C-alpha cells in the first residue's frame, strides 16, 4: 500500500512539474500542433472529411469527458471493493 502511494505521488509530480517548467505555455493538445505541421509541409492539403458531430461547446465537451472518467473510475472502485470484500470472507 505504501509503495502504491509512493508510485502515485510520482505520477502526480510528473503532471505538476511541466506546469512550472513551462510557465506561460498554452498547454494545447498536440494534435493541433500536428495540424499546423501538416500545413507547413503541404500548404495545399485540404482535409477531405469533417467530423460528423462535435460537442456544441467546451462545456458540453467537459460534461461528456467528466462522465467518462466518472464511469470508468466507478467501475474500478467497484472492482476493488468487490475483490477486497471477497478476500476478507475467504
Amino acid at each position, binding site marked *: 500500500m505504501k509503495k502504491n502511494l509512493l*508510485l*502515485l505521488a510520482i505520477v502526480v509530480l510528473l503532471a505538476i512539474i511541466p506546469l512550472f517548467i513551462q510557465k506561460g505555455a498554452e498547454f494545447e493538445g498536440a494534435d493541433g500542433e500536428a495540424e499546423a505541421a501538416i500545413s507547413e509541409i503541404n500548404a495545399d492539403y485540404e482535409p477531405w472529411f469533417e467530423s460528423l458531430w462535435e460537442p456544441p461547446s467546451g462545456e458540453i*465537451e467537459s460534461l461528456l469527458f467528466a462522465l*467518462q*472518467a466518472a464511469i*470508468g473510475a466507478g467501475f474500478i472502485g467497484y472492482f476493488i471493493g468487490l475483490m477486497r470484500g471477497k478476500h476478507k470472507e475467504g
Partner: protein
Amino acid sequence: MKFSGWKLSYFLLAFLFVPNRAFAMHIMEGFLPIEWAIFWWVVSIPFIILGLRSIRKTIDENPETKMILGLSGAFAFVLSALKIPSVTGSCSHPTGVGLGTVLFGPLAMSVIGTIVLLFQSLLLAHGGLTTLGANTFSMAIVGPIIVYYVFKGSQKMGLSFSVAVFLAAMLGDLGTYVVTSVQLALAFPSEVGGFMASFTKFAGIFALTQVPLAVSEGILTVIVMNFLKKYNVSELKALRVFSAKEAH
C-alpha cells in the same frame, strides 16, 4: 467469480455511452489522404477480427476473468480521459492499453482500443472515422504488440514482475506515438528531406510530449497490477501472466 448480467450491462453501458476525450495522439479527421486512410483500414481489420475471436476464447476458457476484462476496459477509459500537461508545454494523454495487453494479450486489446477510438471520433470529434484505421493500427495494434513482447522479454531476462509491467506499458505508450509520427510522415513527406524530415517534425510534436506521460502510464499500470497480484492470483494464473519462475 460469479458474473451477473447487470454487471455486464453496466460495463457495456460504460462502453456505449461514454465518449473518450483525446487531445494529442490521434490523426485528425480528414487529415490522411484517402489512399492512406483506406490502406490503414485494410491493415487493421484482420487484427480486430482475430481480437474478437481471442476475447471469446479467453472468456470461454476462463469465465472468471470477465470482471478483469471489464477492469482492463475501464482502465483504458479512465487513462485516456486524463489529459496531462507535459514538458513540451502541450497536453496529451496515456493510452491505457498496457494493462489489458499483459493480462489478455495484444489481440484482445485491438478490440477494446478500437471501441475507445470509435467513440472518441463519434462523440468528441477527436481522431476521426476516416483515420480510425490508422489510429487503431498505432494505439490498438502496434502499441499492444510492443507491450506484449517487452513484457515477455523482460520476464525472460529475469526482471521482476513489476519492472516488466512498467517497461512494457511505458514503451507501448511511446511506441504508439512513434507509429503515429511514421504514418503522418508517410502521408506527408517534406519537399526537402522527404520522409525523414517529416518524421522528425511529427515525432518532435507527438513522441516528446509523450515521454513523461509514458512513465506515468507505466507506473499506473504497475499500481493496478499490484492490486490484482494481491487479490486475483488465481485469475492471473489462469491467464498465464506469471513466468514459470513466479508461478510456484
